[in-house]
């Protein structure tokens, strides 16, 4: 239970249950309503209107000014309409239980909210960029014209008013489901079972396992193929879990350095 309660670990005493997203990609129709709703509600600036030539994906990836990104994958497969299996998936910040971005942030700009989500405090970020290289999912990025980093807030403002985040609200197929994380996980497991029973053997959950490298994610997914097919890392981890061993190596290196310099002075005096 405590592993799923990062808000308590962050010091919130009385707090609402951890809220999150369950994105069931098996019912995504690729309408991009989530992308649009997110931009509109959060006043996220335009970040390039490009034709990428990647199926219907002209968004490309998550970034400082793209907080929802719908991926389109066309897989040749016999027996499907036009011989193509479509995979569509709306990606978003994972709001990790062990969030590398938050852990490495030197200013304390990135915080854990009472809902267990991860949010940038824009009045504090100094744009050091550490979180950008720490995120194992390549989510958070710096808005160069602004100098600070930006990412999905899980509509923190809406949550405080008991509203559903904009993307989930706009999703016409309920591919994006919002709610208390533990309820979502139960629902997702049932959904995987029923898909498996229907013969969809590739159905699996991504981010729903609290024992994975990021302690499970607050925004998790039902995928129909390997994560990397959707542009997701197969085994994401927060590298801060290795921090004790890294500091140990650094201490050994520092000691060797001290010993070496001392020896140089004590060796032969002349």
């Amino acid at each position: 239970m405590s592993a799923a309660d990062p808000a308590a670990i962050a010091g919130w005493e009385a707090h609402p249950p951890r809220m999150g997203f369950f994105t069931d990609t098996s019912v995504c129709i690729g309408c991009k309503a989530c992308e649009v709703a997110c931009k509109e509600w959060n006043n996220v600036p335009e970040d390039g209107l490009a034709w990428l030539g990647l199926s219907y994906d002209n968004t490309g990836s998550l970034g400082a000014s793209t907080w929802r990104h719908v991926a389109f994958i066309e897989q040749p497969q016999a027996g499907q309409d036009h011989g193509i299996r479509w995979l569509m998936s709306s990606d978003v910040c994972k709001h990790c239980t062990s969030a590398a971005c938050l852990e490495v942030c030197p200013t304390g700009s990135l915080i854990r909210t009472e809902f267990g989500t991860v949010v940038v405090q824009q009045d504090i970020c100094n744009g050091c960029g550490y979180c950008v290289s720490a995120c194992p999912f390549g989510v958070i990025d710096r808005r160069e014209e602004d100098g600070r980093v930006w990412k999905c807030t899980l509509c923190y403002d809406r949550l405080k008013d008991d509203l559903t985040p904009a993307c989930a609200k706009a999703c016409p197929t309920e591919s994006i489901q919002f709610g208390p994380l533990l309820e979502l996980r139960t629902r997702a497991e049932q959904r995987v079972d029923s898909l498996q029973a229907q013969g969809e053997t590739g159905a699996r959950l991504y981010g729903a396992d609290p024992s994975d490298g990021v302690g499970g994610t607050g925004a998790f997914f039902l995928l129909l193929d390997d994560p990397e097919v959707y542009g997701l890392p197969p085994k994401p981890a927060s590298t801060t879990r290795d921090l004790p061993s890294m500091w140990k190596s650094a201490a050994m290196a520092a000691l060797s350095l001290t010993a070496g310099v001392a020896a140089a002075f004590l060796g032969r005096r002349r």
Partner: protein
Amino acid sequence: MVPDAEVRTYYDRPILKQPVWTWLVPAYFFTGGLAAGSAMLAAGARLTGNRRLARQSRLVALGALGASTALLIKDLGRPGRFYNMFRVLKPTSPMSIGSWALGAFGSAAAAGMASDVLDVLPGLGALADMAAGGIAPAVATYTAVLLADTAVPAWHEARHELPFVFAASAAASAGGVAVALTPPSEAGPARRVLGAGALAELAAVEALHRRLGPELAATYEQGLAGTLGTWSKALTAVGAVTAVAGGRRFRPLAVAGGLATAAGGAVLRFAIFEAGKAAARDPKYVVGPQRREAGVGG
């Protein structure tokens, strides 16, 4: 080694974000290392009564530290908010720990300098020099932990070797600059630091490549990182041999060899930086190793 074709990706698009850091960051690593190594030389020289070397090295330490801090601030997206680095002290953030270490280091080195130049409070001055020299090894190595604590495979998988690379390179560079600036008769300890540092640097880089294995080591061996790596090795090796073998008698060789060794250390930081950028750019470096860790085959 996993052939590229076996790794499935989303249109070959990167999984990780490119570091937003520019050339200012490897330059900040180098000058930080140089400052740390020089402060240690200054402390050693002060303890052994080598006043000339002490002064020289303290000056280099302060100059390099000033440059390092300026580079670090310049690379921020919001330089005017640099002071937010001192808003909290966060054990989980190597950059936070490093900022505080840099602050303490700079204050101590400046105090040591002030006492020496103004000729006041020599006892406190010596103490300050010792403090700077004592914090210096942390300043030399925290940047390695900073890089290693990222999702970038070329940096994280090298987490146990990077601190040794950075420590050795700090020694070699500081020794190099000191040998170049100090008359050979008083540069004995600096020469030894240069020689041992250069050897250790070359050995640690070799160990790093081995640790990564052929697939990830490619990020250090190919492209811009590979070119820089080769230059770094050559500069360090040739510079060290020149300075140690020839610099004892001939001042010009000391200057050339010392500066070449330091340049080798500088280029090395850029090589490591570029390797990380290459690793973040190509999703195969993320998918391949993670797949193997998962034991699911390539």
